[in-house]
């Protein structure tokens, strides 16, 4: 339905604007910029800073009114250029500057400060304030990430509104009144929010600064590029900024389709791990006689090729296997898919950690985020957006506030529960009839039903979720799917063919001439591959940005696996996996290579480049190309442009994908581009809402010829430097387990199903490498129902042990929210993931510790 239009006169110009538009936005549309501080297009207007005063006609003639607060009305006249308006605006600037310190030269905001800029544009130029300014202790660390300078604060209510209205976590608020009003946390409670970094971005002065960025750079010294956050599959649009070959800052770009300018702290401050060279894999390494030593790329690639040839010679194509985490970008994923399926010809390819089941149901029914949030009902299946795709949580909160009907299907209460109209428990017993129960709870009415699917419980094989999803799609005809699956490019990896049972583009047409005869990866699953490898059936296991600790293997198990087969680890960060690998190849990480990713709505998004790859790191597709060359087949991939040409040739999801596709949109096209309506007016970047990023350059994929770089870049030689590994250890039972996913079995009397909820701050190798965020991992915690605890003869606060493939000892908390069949575990270290037994839905025993 088109908006009702009203006719208004803005500075003498008669224009038609939709009814209800704030005057300030109507003025923006005709290019009249009204100065502003408190106004933010993504939050409710409060009209408190009084900077945007204009003269507005009313029943009693013209009066001074805040243009952010007042909406246009038929026949309204607005004057922005009168002496009265100018006087009022300069008066407000003077008032704001009265108590503002003159510390611009040392203020992080200096150079991109709305107060500075608007004081120049609308202020008097000289101060008349000779009184003593307000003084406060400063800066006050209101969290481990955020510093508050109350002297600089202009009380615009942006941060407090964000915390309350957008994030739903009112952990900061005004305190005091009048001249003494100030931003404060409550008592000693930290401003501990996944979204706290946003307040530093929307603060119109230097009152709120991010600790990792403090005094790091001047904004005019930063280079920047548009990119897509690399942490999860939301695909938040960002400006990534760098100085002196180090990432300094990340800001959210206001993408109407995706993130509305918001970011989560995990994404925003994730740059700290990229910069942490100590934690990075910098050079290729290879093991000789169990000793890890640095080698050249040429030597490393040749070694991998030799290992692959040997394995194929002795065990056939299926003795080479590929496991990926879904983090490689689209170009890398495609090149590795081609290498694995076509050059090597192995069917054992799971580049998405078992999430291919979900992805294969997803793509044909993919719903955009906007569609999902406007649906008749949204069914949230095994997902907690706040922990998995945090910014979607913000969009979801807004949508529920606007009336979205939410049905939650999770094993325990989550941050969704308070918003959900219905909560249905996802229990091991109820998997069979779940879809029918959900379908029965749908509200009547027209419009789409959208299923939001994620991977909340890590102790549950994604294949189980995939099965429920298939049932749901059958039970709710026409249902569409928005995916919140884990890693940043799991959807792109699937569409690139780096997942079981799929070819590039998810196409079913003819194989293009650039391929020969790809293997059928069928129903390969990382768990099955690991079992095969442990059983000695795999000669070479290629691990693509995948740390096996994250899927439940202990460092000992990984080491043992490395002795059963040759592990090849393409990785950016050192981990138990890189240390156990026969060959480690340094992978250019986020911010170091251009490319593209696909988010959970099937939107293709660009990755920008701001750094030289650390050490000898290379993009993943370059590594694939080098290895292919040593296998005697260069795959005809010499530039990213070659990849794009092949993607287009595959068609399917990539039908019509041209390199120019990014230039027609700020966001990025939904795939296939035919379902996407290009040409929607790009949202104007609010220079105050997103300071400093209105001019961000938008890089496409890297089509530069010769981007293969120098394949013979040489390492420092093969001097043995690393530790000698122990050998001859047995493969632990967890890896050798023969249990099959989906067959859940019956737990023993003292057994329970494990709930290991995905968290924003997962204790993985990358977080450990992040000095800004590492401290946010929560402590060990075991939660069980009071009844189960009682049966154990234990009470709240007693120490217990959770026995699975490993034993975890921790304090038990009685929690009504945990079903009786479950044990919920979260932990400070990655060790909790070792409780995952790799068999469908992991089971554990709970034991009481005496004393």
């Amino acid at each position, binding site marked *: 339905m088109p908006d009702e239009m009203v006719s208004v006169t803005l500075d003498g110009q008669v224009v038609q604007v939709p009814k209800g538009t704030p005057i300030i936005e109507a003025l923006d549309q005709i290019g009249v910029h009204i100065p502003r501080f408190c106004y933010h297009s993504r939050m409710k207007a409060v*009209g*408190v*800073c*009084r*900077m945007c*005063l204009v003269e507005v006609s009313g029943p009693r003639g013209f*009066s*001074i009114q*805040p243009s952010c*607060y*007042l909406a246009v009305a038929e026949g309204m006249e607005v004057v922005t250029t009168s002496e*009265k308006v100018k*006087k*009022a605006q300069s*008066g*407000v600037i*003077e*008032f*704001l500057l*009265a*108590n503002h310190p003159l510390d611009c030269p040392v203020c992080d905001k200096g150079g991109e400060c709305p107060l500075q800029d608007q004081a120049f544009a609308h202020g008097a130029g000289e101060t*008349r*304030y000779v*009184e*003593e300014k307000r003084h406060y202790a400063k800066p006050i660390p209101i969290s481990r990430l955020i510093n508050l300078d109350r002297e600089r604060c*202009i*009380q615009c*209510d942006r941060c407090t509104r964000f915390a309350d209205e957008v994030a739903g976590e009112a952990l900061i608020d*005004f305190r*005091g*009144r*009048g*001249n*003494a*009003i100030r931003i404060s946390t409550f008592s000693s409670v930290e401003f501990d929010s996944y979204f706290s970094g946003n307040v530093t971005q929307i603060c119109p002065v230097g009152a709120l600064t991010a600790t990792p960025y403090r005094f790091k750079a001047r904004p005019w010294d930063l280079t920047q590029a548009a990119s897509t956050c690399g942490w999860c599959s939301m695909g938040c649009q960002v400006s990534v900024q760098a100085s002196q070959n180090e990432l300094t800052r990340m800001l959210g770009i206001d993408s109407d389709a995706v993130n509305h300018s918001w970011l989560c702290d995990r994404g925003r401050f994730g740059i700290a791990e990229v910069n942490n060279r100590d934690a990075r894999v910098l050079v290729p390494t290879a093991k000789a006689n169990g000793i890890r030593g640095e080698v050249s790329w040429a030597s490393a690639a040749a070694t991998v090729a030799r290992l692959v040839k040997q394995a194929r010679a002795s065990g056939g194509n299926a003795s080479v296997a590929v496991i990926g985490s879904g983090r490689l970008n689209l170009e890398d994923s495609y090149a590795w898919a081609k290498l694995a399926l076509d050059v090597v010809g192995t069917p054992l390819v799971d580049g998405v950690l078992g999430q291919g089941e979900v992805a294969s149901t997803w793509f044909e029914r993919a719903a955009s985020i906007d569609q999902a949030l406007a649906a008749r009902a949204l069914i949230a299946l095994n997902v907690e957006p706040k922990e998995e795709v945090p910014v979607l949580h913000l969009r979801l909160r807004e949508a529920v506030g606007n009336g979205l009907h939410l049905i939650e299907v999770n094993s325990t209460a989550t941050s969704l529960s308070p918003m959900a109209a219905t909560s249905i428990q996802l229990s091991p017993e109820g998997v069979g009839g779940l879809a029918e129960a959900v379908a029965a709870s749908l509200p009547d009415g027209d419009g789409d039903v959208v299923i939001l699917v994620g991977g909340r419980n890590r102790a549950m094989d994604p294949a189980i979720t995939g099965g429920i999803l298939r049932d749901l799609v059958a039970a709710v005809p026409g249902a569409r799917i928005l995916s919140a699956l884990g890693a940043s490019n799991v959807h792109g990896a699937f569409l690139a063919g780096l997942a079981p049972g799929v070819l590039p583009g998810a196409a079913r047409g003819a194989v293009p001439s650039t391929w020969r005869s790809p293997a059928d990866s069928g129903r390969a699953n990382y768990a099955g591959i690991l079992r095969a490898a442990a059983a000695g059936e795999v000669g070479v296991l290629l691990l693509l940005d995948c740390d096996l600790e994250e899927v439940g293997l202990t460092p000992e198990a990984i080491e043992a696996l490395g002795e059963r087969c040759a592990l090849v680890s393409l990785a950016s960060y050192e981990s138990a996996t890189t240390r156990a690998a026969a060959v480690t190849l340094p992978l250019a990480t986020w911010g170091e290579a251009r490319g593209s990713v696909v988010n959970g709505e099937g939107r293709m998004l660009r990755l920008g480049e701001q750094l030289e790859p650390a050490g000898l790191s290379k993009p993943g597709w370059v590594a694939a190309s080098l290895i292919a060359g040593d296998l005697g087949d260069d795959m005809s991939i010499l530039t990213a442009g070659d990849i794009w040409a092949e993607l287009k040739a595959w068609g399917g999801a990539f039908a019509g994908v041209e390199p120019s596709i990014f230039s027609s949109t700020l966001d990025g096209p939904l795939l296939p581009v035919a379902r996407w309506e290009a040409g929607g007016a790009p949202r104007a970047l609010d220079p105050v809402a997103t300071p400093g990023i209105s001019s961000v350059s938008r890089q496409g994929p890297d089509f530069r010829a010769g981007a293969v770089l120098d394949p013979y870049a040489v390492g420092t030689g093969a001097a043995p430097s690393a530790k000698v590994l122990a050998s001859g250890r047995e493969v632990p039972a967890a890896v050798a387990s023969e249990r099959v996913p989906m067959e859940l079995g019956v737990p023993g009397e003292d057994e329970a199903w494990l709930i290991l909820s995905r968290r924003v701050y997962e204790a993985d190798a990358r977080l450990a490498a992040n000095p800004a965020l590492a401290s946010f991992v929560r402590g060990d915690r075991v939660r069980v129902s009071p009844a189960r605890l009682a049966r154990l003869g234990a009470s709240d606060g007693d120490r217990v042990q959770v026995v699975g493939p490993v034993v975890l000892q921790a304090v038990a908390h009685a929690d009504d929210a945990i079903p009786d069949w479950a044990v919920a575990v979260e932990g400070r270290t990655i060790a909790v993931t070792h409780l995952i037994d790799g068999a469908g839905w992991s089971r554990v025993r709970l034991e009481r510790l005496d004393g």
Partner: protein
Amino acid sequence: MRIVGARLEHADSHTLERFLATGGNNALRKALLEMTPEAVAAEVLTANLLGRGGAGFEAGRKWGMLRKAKRRYLVVNGDESEPATFKDHLLVERDPHQLVEGATIAAYAIGASLAVIYLRGEFALGLERVQEAINDAYRIGALGRDIFGSGFSVDIVLQPGAGAYICGEETALLESLEGNRGFPRIKPPYFPAVIGLYGDPTIVNNVETVSNLPWIVENGGEAFKSLGSGRSTGTRLFALSGQVNRPGVYEVEMTKITFRDLIFGEEFGQGLAPSRSLTAFIPGGASSPWFFPEHLDLPLGQDEVAKAGSMLGSGSVIVMDDSSCPVRSAWRIARFFARESCGQCTPCREGGTWIDRIMERIERGNGREEDLDLLLDLCDNISPGVVWPPAQTTICVLGPSIPPAISAAISRFRDDFLLHIKEGRCPHA
């Protein structure tokens, strides 16, 4: 002529016994049992009862603007906190039953199922007595379910304020009632009659306004209108204070006496101290423009005072004689408002404190000549034009309450300011 103060001649005017013995609840019975809500509202409209809280808007017209909705609320504003304003204080302590009766009548007339009496938190005795009056009313069936068998039900809740003057501003009061900070809402669109308490249409009436209702119902709107003249009908309470011999609260028929009568009259203020002369007086509370000796013969009528460039406001008349320092007086007013600013919007938060600091400097002898123009310009940036009635760059009228005193003091007592500056001290100290 006494209306709201009729019962105050009795020492036990606050008791239920005295209330009932002096016609208490007769009006409520009449309204509920013999009149329709529309008829009650019509009498109030006829009476032309002007709001007694400060703005002086016709109560009957305000009621008529109430948006139709399933839920409506009545809020009685008793957050009387301005210096020199103390008339409601008297009513809540000395005739709380009249207030409860009036509130119940108002709730009936506007169709409110819940009424809230919001009293200044420092009114310890008032809170105690109003709560007792509410309890009494419930006990005798004058409040709660099916009042006097009329079928009309309403509850009254007493809410103490928490010490912020700004919560007397009606929209800040509603925020406070909702459990939020006392930040005034922006009008438009948040006119309480349209979007009030919890988003529902709400009437906010002053204690004295509501206390007039029993008399109007009992005697009719015409009888009320026959008192006073023009738009100023009935009687009003005036709180007389300052350098006057007999300060106090006086109920007078509107327009029938002048400020000279009030300040100098034998039955009222009884003049100034010996050998003192009047230099200025404030006719309607701290925020109103000052009057001077030439205004003494103006009658106490709303339009008469408005025409002369000020307002009757909250009915607080503050007298200054030649022993008082006008700089200090204006500073005290500025300081009060600066300290009571909610801090939400810039001109009031920053401008108010700035003016306070400059005034303090001048009073303490550290002023500069250019400070006078600066003060007037800062006033202009809070209240463009420094005109009356005031324009505002602020959300509410608290900030614009400062300029009238400053501009009056500077324009009338410029020499005093210059003397402070020249001598580097307060000549009155």
